[in-house]
């Protein structure tokens, strides 16, 4: 077993004194080499879950174990590559130097740094842009640089927070295929946040559906579509069938919440 998430609860206290229940007893076990998509309404805690897994925030309760060791240790061991919702490139570094950044921090030699960074840029089809500065790239290109940067040090776990949210449909599909190729080639474990049902189904081995207030996992749907996937996958009957399944689970998750709210209102009135 690879990542064991057990009973995670995360509460944030807002400045006005109220408490936000971002995650409520979330448990999820992920096998090595899986591709997990997190999908759910805005504010249901997807980014928070990703941050806790990466040990960027410490949960109020519960724990994350990566191959038996705490998330903190896994972060110290550089097992996480994180792709944020926005590209977060450093303005003062060229594209190549941005991809080299994690390698610099981890103490790789100059020659190896550059060779690896160039490889990764080729992987995301930006080999010709190595010496450009971030502002000279489109939003989609910047996001691809940030993916190259996350892959440069070959982390075992790739955490991606809506990496393709800002891309047009065509680029997005191409990036999906590239991501699948990279995933299979490198054998990384991926946890991927998205708002797109087709994207989640196309990429994943498992789709985790979340509901909001408090953030919970409302369903987990296996995606047994054949590997490797490609354009023909998108025409497969199962592809549509599974999308409907995810959509239904999302609706059910939202429905529960409505029920709860009605119940509460009734309670107050009575």
């Amino acid at each position: 077993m690879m990542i064991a998430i057990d009973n995670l609860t995360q509460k944030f206290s807002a400045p006005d004194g109220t408490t936000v229940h971002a995650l409520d007893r979330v448990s999820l076990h992920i096998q090595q080499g899986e591709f997990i998509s997190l999908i759910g309404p805005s504010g249901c805690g997807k980014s928070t879950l990703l941050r806790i897994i990466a040990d960027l925030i410490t949960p109020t309760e519960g724990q994350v174990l990566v191959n038996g060791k705490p998330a903190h240790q896994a972060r110290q061991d550089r097992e996480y590559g994180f792709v944020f919702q926005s590209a977060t490139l450093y303005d003062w570094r060229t594209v190549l130097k941005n991809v080299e950044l994690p390698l610099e921090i981890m103490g790789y030699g100059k020659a190896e740094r550059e060779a690896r960074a160039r490889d990764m840029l080729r992987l995301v089809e930006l080999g010709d842009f190595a010496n450009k500065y971030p502002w000279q790239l489109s939003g989609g290109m910047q996001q691809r640089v940030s993916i190259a940067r996350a892959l440069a040090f070959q982390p075992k776990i790739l955490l991606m927070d809506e990496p393709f949210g800002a891309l047009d449909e065509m680029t997005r599909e191409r990036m999906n295929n590239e991501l699948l190729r990279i995933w299979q080639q490198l054998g990384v474990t991926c946890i991927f946040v998205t708002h797109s049902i087709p994207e989640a189904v196309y990429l994943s081995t498992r789709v985790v559906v979340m509901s909001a207030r408090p953030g919970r996992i409302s369903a987990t749907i296996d995606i047994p579509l054949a590997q490797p996937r490609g354009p023909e996958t998108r025409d497969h009957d199962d592809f549509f069938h599974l999308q409907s399944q995810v959509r239904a689970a999302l609706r059910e998750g939202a429905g529960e919440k409505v029920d709860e709210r009605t119940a509460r209102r009734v309670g107050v009135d009575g």
Partner: protein
Amino acid sequence: MTQARSSEKLQTAFIVVLLLLAVVGLWEGAKAFSRAVNYALDLPWGGTLDLRNFNNQQLPHLGDIARSFVEPAQRNGPPLGLILLNASLFTLSSAVIGFVLGGVLGFLLAIIFAHSRLLQRGLLPYVVASQTIPILAIAPMVVVWMRQINLTGLAVPIIAAYLTFFPVTVYALRGLTSVSPLQLELMRSYAATRWQILFKLRIPNALPQIFTALKISATASVVGTIIGELPSGIQSGLGGAILNFNQYYVQGPPRLWATIVAASLVGMLFFGVVALAERLIVRWNRPE
């Protein structure tokens, strides 16, 4: 694009020349007008306005000031321009030492404050307070202290540093702490150390602001040096020249004015060098 940029340069040059002409026009115009009315203007609502400040003694012709550079300051002495050049170089070297001292001190303070909220809250008020003390009041004391420990040569640079470090602390602190949370999280995801975050994220992020401060400090250090030279009895710099030509003002008013021009040229030169360094170092930004 190059064409647009060169036409922009032309526009800048045009404006600079225009402003220069305006200053010359105002200066000489005010003088000519004052002389025409015999340095007293009857006000329509009664009383007279004293315009004697515009006479040749108080406000020499620009031409006379320019000419004074090539004329000897004393009989059979070297031309004033040469004297001022030497004085400027002397003052500039003190200013540069003060600038470096102050810059380093200011930067170190900013780094300390960026890493410790406690020290920032405890020390920053004193740093601010230090800037409210008139430099003229402490300059003589610094000179005396430095003489006591046999480092007289450092007195003036230290006074200059006193004016230099503050903008650097304020701007660098702002730059070091204004990194986005996401960029910090990125660093944390690599398990980067404090030092790596400082050198690879905070300092580069602060560079544009640091250069803003350094440009302010460059001119401030020249002012600080001249102020420091006044009470310390140093004759070789612009401060000494100002004292000297002030004392003998009546014998040659343009000399003091020429010294003022020299002082401002030194400040502008220093500013220009820092601005050039900024251009060479902060080169990642989108051209406007």
